[in-house]
């Protein structure tokens, strides 16, 4: 008895939409099995992971706090992914955006304080876009691979942040902790409700999703990108610039990640420390693909991935399960999503017959 993989004649559109749902369901199944093997009651632990954290208002707002950067970044990355521009260095672009925004917040003269948040926003945007722009420049001038360049730039950004918070930007009154001074009051986002940490960035995340929808479904720029991604030779035939697509794809993702960096710095963090993101830039890639690069999908995917962060913290406290469980769930989801997608276009056929 042997098996063979063959392409499906008609890949169903429904199956394509169902693939992420199936992947999420399988993730829960495998996650439960994992808990059982580790000696935790699976149903109870899954409840503690996925349901209890969001059953309180506080838990729900914390979910939003984590979903916001994921959604903003995923929306930006989707523009590039649709054009087959693979920016996987959003983590680094987020870091540079946060650095640029914090730099403006810490060092701007007081005369600019009334304008401080908008200035920091722009600085974050430019910082993230510029970092991604390096990859665009190298790709268009030297034909380097943007996957490698954006990834490696992430490590450079991380080390640069480490250098700043341990060196020139270290808070002189911070007891030698590797962190900057707190941002001035004018450079911090007020929570929407003083009880919780969630800020107006939630609104921006929704704006980002609407923008993504307009760009991908209606705009000519989005049309050009999708043609370039789906059929590069057709794009050349139509006269759509390939370099333009690379620049737009990378700069959009970089700008979105930089804005997310600004919201992190000015929102929940209020200052820079050696680690400012629990891997939002990487998790956002999963969000983009779970969400099929579409606005509604990214909203759902962002909330689910945020839940893996909140749930991971929750079971760490309640059950003593180590925090890397969050990464395990994210990895499981990505793996199972790729597997589900594979079976949207291929099927397994049994070839048990003896050869004639």
């Amino acid at each position: 008895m042997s098996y063979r993989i063959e392409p499906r004649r008609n890949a169903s559109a429904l199956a394509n939409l169902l693939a992420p749902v199936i992947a999420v369901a399988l993730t829960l199944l495998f996650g439960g099995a994992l808990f059982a093997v580790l000696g935790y009651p699976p149903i109870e632990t899954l409840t503690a992971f996925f349901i209890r954290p969001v059953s309180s208002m506080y838990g729900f707002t914390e979910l939003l706090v984590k979903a916001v950067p994921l959604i903003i970044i995923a929306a930006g990355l989707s523009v590039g992914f649709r054009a087959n521009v693979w920016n996987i260095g959003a983590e680094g672009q987020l870091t540079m955006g946060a650095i640029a925004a914090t730099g403006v917040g810490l060092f701007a003269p007081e005369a600019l304080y009334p304008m401080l948040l908008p200035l920091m926003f722009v600085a974050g945007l430019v910082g993230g876009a510029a970092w991604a722009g390096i990859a665009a420049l190298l790709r268009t001038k030297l034909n380097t691979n943007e996957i490698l360049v954006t990834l490696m730039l992430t490590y450079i950004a991380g080390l640069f942040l480490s250098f700043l918070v341990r060196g020139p930007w270290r808070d002189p009154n911070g007891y030698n902790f590797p962190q900057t001074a707190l941002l001035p009051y004018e450079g911090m986002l007020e929570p929407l409700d003083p009880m919780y940490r969630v800020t107006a960035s939630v609104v921006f995340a929704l704006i980002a999703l609407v923008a993504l929808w307009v760009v991908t479904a209606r705009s000519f720029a989005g049309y050009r990108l999708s043609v370039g991604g789906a059929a590069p030779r057709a794009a050349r035939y139509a006269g759509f610039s390939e370099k333009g697509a690379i620049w737009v794809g990378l700069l959009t993702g970089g700008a979105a990640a930089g804005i997310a960096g600004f919201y992190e710095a000015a929102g929940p963090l209020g200052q820079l420390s050696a680690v400012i993101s629990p891997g939002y830039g990487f998790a956002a890639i999963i969000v983009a693909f779970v969400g099929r690069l579409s606005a509604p999908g990214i909203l759902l995917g962002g909330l689910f991935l945020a839940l893996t962060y909140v749930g991971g913290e929750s079971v760490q406290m309640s059950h003593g399960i180590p925090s890397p469980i969050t990464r395990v769930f994210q990895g499981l989801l990505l793996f199972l999503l790729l597997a589900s997608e594979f079976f949207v276009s291929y099927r397994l056929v049994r070839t048990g017959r003896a050869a004639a």
Partner: protein
Amino acid sequence: MTARLQLAGVSKAYPGVVANDDISLSVAGGEIHAILGENGAGKSTLMKIIYGVTTPDAGEIRYDGKLLEAHSPGQSRALGIEMVYQHFSLFETVSVAENVALCLEGRLDLPALRLRIRETAARYGLAVDPDRIVMDLSMGERQQLEILRCLMRDPRLLILDEPTSVLSPQAVEQLFTVLRRIAAEGCSIIYISHKLDEVRALCHAATVLRGGRVTGEVDPRQATSHELAVMMVGSDLPIPERPASTPSATPRLSLRGLSGRPLGLAGRRLQDISLDLFGGEVVGIAGISGNGQSELAACLSGEALCPAGQVLLGETPVGQMRPDARRRAGLAYVPEERLGRGAVPGQSLTANTVLTGYASGLVRHGMVRFAEARRRASAVIERFSVKADGPGALASSLSGGNLQKFILGRELALAPDVLVVAQPTWGVDVGAAAFIRQRLIDLSRDGAAVLVFSEELDELIEICDRIHVLSEGQLSEAVPREEATKDRLGALMTGGELGPVAEPAE
């Protein structure tokens, strides 16, 4: 004597279409049997059923008298049934011998294999050198390699799907010699084609298909092309109307000493090409692909750039303009590759209308006007009777011929001053081809300049006012329509008056 292959009552339906309806035919040992039919007549489905790619809904297949049931291509090969597809399945970057090795079972012994290749090639008169890299082979040589690959497995039934679509007339002759020799050794050949002359010259028997049914079984050596065509199409073919026309006073498109770079590793350098194309005329560029056709077309469309003054649209130098700018200047272009270049496979016909229509009102304030695009797509579908499930149908869901009609209709709807078309009727059925040719003539008679690249000499002679031959990157003098014969053009194609021959090692 039992027939090598016997089909009885074979039927196959796909959702919405009956591809094969009660087909019966019989192929004797050593017989060259033509399956003649237009695109969509059901030829490919029938071949897939014989080869075991598809299972029929009804009917039986007997091979040497034995019933074949739910057989796979692997089992077919084990029985000695081999198939050469229209689109070659060769690995371009490795040698001929390695390509052969990839489809043989057992241990790889390259030196021994080289020897066997030379022997087999010599036996059948094939010009195949085991050490050459496939990339460097001409289309004719690749075809021979595909056939040799099958011969290495001692086939008893060889299926060839439109084998001459990319061959020069001389290479076709050579192929026929080889096929006759193979048949003489007892191997049966099924020859799928829509080219009547070829079937008449080569085949011992012909089964004609139309709309999935057998409409005739004839001895093609006895029948006339006209009789075969009527069986294939079901009615008399329209002869294109060519009203007289007066060329415009000044050229619409001019080439001045164009010398484009080769595209890709097997590309051709263009050698100092000059040409004037006037409004009101159809000009043909004959020649086999790989002689600079892609390079010249790319220089015209703007996919490849060249010094500004080497290409002029009217009086404007456009050599440095990208395709979008040239399109705005009144040039339209239909490439020979439809899926992936002329159209985006995974997008709807509506979206594919935007691909070239964006310069003419489909984009406003940076937003695509999809409703308007949809209207235009519907209009093209209707006017060119494109068989498609409405403007929302994916380009990849259309057959090659229907997609070509759509793309051509889309470009004609832009009312271009200059239209460049590559292989306008490649893979298009006879009826649709006649329709397309007429549209090209009509466009020129409305005042546009039309430049047609084609490998089919009959087609060029039918529609063009004058014909040039592009061979080895050089453009011949114009041959006026009245003086254009297949022999004269064929001689120019193989370098009769242009120096070295076009097909090396032949």
